């Protein structure tokens, strides 16, 4: 088959176990060469607040700063480092709008959510205009085939694209999310995982969590992102 990222044709290598358990059906649509360019973050080498790859134990500098306003951090788990390969991936997937790429990490995520699970998975929403323009929600594209998604947040349209903002502007950003109260009601006493594609400053995920907590106080919420 043809690799979705580099267009080279490649042969999926199957182990005996793959054949035995029909695992081939969930193997990656990207070639080994491309897979190797992504840097997986192991939990024992990650910041316990934001999930970034680091050498020391405990919280990173950014998370220590967050902690002043948010004593309860996100405990984000990120699967991959936001390295050059991951940036290229998001450029083609989100900026160019290549929806096919949403399947690139399906099998890795499938393995991941066998170990990390919750009652309900809430994707970070996109606003209507971006959805119209892009034709899809990038977060739902990545996670939709792996876990059942529950839509209970809406996003207001913002005048300036987040990608064009600098770090300071992003951090000062006002709450962009609104909870759909009807849909939030069944969440009470459930274990929630909030899903996003990239953890950049953490602002978006803190907002999303605030919004959910305001709608249903006392919820247990952690977060998972594909990249950090």
């Amino acid at each position, binding site marked *: 088959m043809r690799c979705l990222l580099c267009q080279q044709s490649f042969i999926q290598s199957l182990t005996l176990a793959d054949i035995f358990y029909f695992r081939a059906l969930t193997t990656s649509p990207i070639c080994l060469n491309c897979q190797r360019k992504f840097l997986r973050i192991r939990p024992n080498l990650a910041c316990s607040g934001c999930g970034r790859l680091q050498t020391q134990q405990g919280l990173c500098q950014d998370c220590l700063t967050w902690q002043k306003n948010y004593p309860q951090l996100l405990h984000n788990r990120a699967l991959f480092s936001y390295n050059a390969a991951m940036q290229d991936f998001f450029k083609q997937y989100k900026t*160019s*709008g290549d929806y096919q790429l949403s399947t690139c990490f399906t099998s890795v995520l499938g393995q991941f959510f066998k170990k990390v699970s919750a009652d309900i998975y809430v994707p970070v929403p996109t606003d209507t205009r971006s959805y119209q323009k892009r*034709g899809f*929600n990038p977060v739902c594209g990545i996670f939709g085939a792996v876990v059942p998604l529950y839509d209970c947040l809406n996003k207001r349209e913002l005048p300036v694209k987040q990608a064009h903002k600098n770090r300071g502007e992003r951090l000062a950003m006002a709450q962009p999310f609104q909870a759909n109260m009807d849909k939030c009601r069944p969440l009470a006493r459930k274990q929630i995982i909030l899903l996003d594609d990239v953890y950049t400053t953490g602002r978006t995920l803190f907002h999303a969590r605030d919004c959910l907590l305001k709608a249903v106080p006392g919820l247990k919420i952690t977060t998972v992102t594909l990249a950090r």
Partner: protein
Amino acid sequence: MNCEALFGRLEIVDQTTCKAWRDLFPELIVQPAMLLTNTVVTCQRCQARHSKKRVQLPSGTYYCPTCLLLGRVCSNEYLVNLPEKNCFKGPTELTWQGTLTPAQAEAAEMIKQIFKQHRQHLLWAVTGAGKTEMLFPGLFAALKQGKRVAIASPRIDVCLELLPRLQQAFAKTEIMLLYGDQPEPYHYTQFVLCTTHQLLRFYQAFDVLVIDEVDAFPFAQDQQLHFAVGQARKKTSACLYLTATPGPALLRQVSKGSLSLSYLPRRYHGHPLALPHCHLALRWYQQLMKGQLPSVLNHLLEDKVQRRQSFLLFVPKIALLEPLAKLLGNNFSDLKFTTVYAADPKRAEKVQAMRQEKLTALLTTTILERGVTFKNIEVIVLGSDDGVFTMSALVQMAGRVGRHRDYPTGRVDFICAGYSCAMKQASKQIKQINKKAGF
């Protein structure tokens, strides 16, 4: 919206913009971006067909992944353009100082006539014939007549190599370079230099279209090239294909009579092409994997090192570069070399270092076979029987040798575990060309 930017140029717009532009420009040519049938969508820009299921977005529309790099085409959008008006001002001057050999001058005159008479032609010019210079008189005449001109090549390296030479030759004319990731946005120019892929963004724009190194186009995509060329040139226009190794599709067009053909078998310095020496080394791959340098390769390398000869060592796979580099580093500690491959982020720097003779050798995959010239270079192809080395790739790699007037000869060696069809054809084509040149 500036109307010039739409002359002969396809833009993708949604319904609202399309309507606004139609009010603004009554001449606007509008076509739906995709055609839908029950199960299949066809992209109207690149003609790729996809099953609806595979390319449907959650919003319900369809998109074309094939030409995504040119900006996404969606089924709820339109392709629009304005007819090419040839609105060019400003002086045209040929600022090129060089001279042509009599053979080149003859070919240059022929090219000028092809452009003038709006013909379709294939020029089979040997590697190192100096074909760019031969275009100058014809291009100059066309530009002076207010014609819109494009040079397209399948490979970005070829375009990047051509740009400074063209800029030097036509210093008063602005040349727009178009390729995949370029930072500069498109604007209207008389002279366009682009990758063949970019031709899909034009519609009946060019009076003169030159396709350089046409053989670099993957054979399987010939249809696509044909379509792109047909779209980008005006109905009455000249089209010149340049190649050192024409593939079967072009030769078929020649025999059908839709394309005329001429040869330029002689290099500008008058020396013949270097004929490859083939060495059989059945177990070269296994040896390499075991950490041994195949003895043929070792001999060849010793000879190069002794003569202080710089060289290119081609391998069929990126994965071979590292083990080979390690062996070379161990066995030839004085040799200054590095590895380079297509997606190498430092590729340009490394090639530059090689050109400036800071390096003696480059270990590389097939990417360097075209467009890149080094003054004094020899070539070894390891695994020349591998499927990635097509006949034209082999001819091109061999053609790196002897390009410069001061170093018109040099060795080409193929190391293989067996003789492939492509290798035989390559040797045959090189002999054939040398014979045509009178050697």
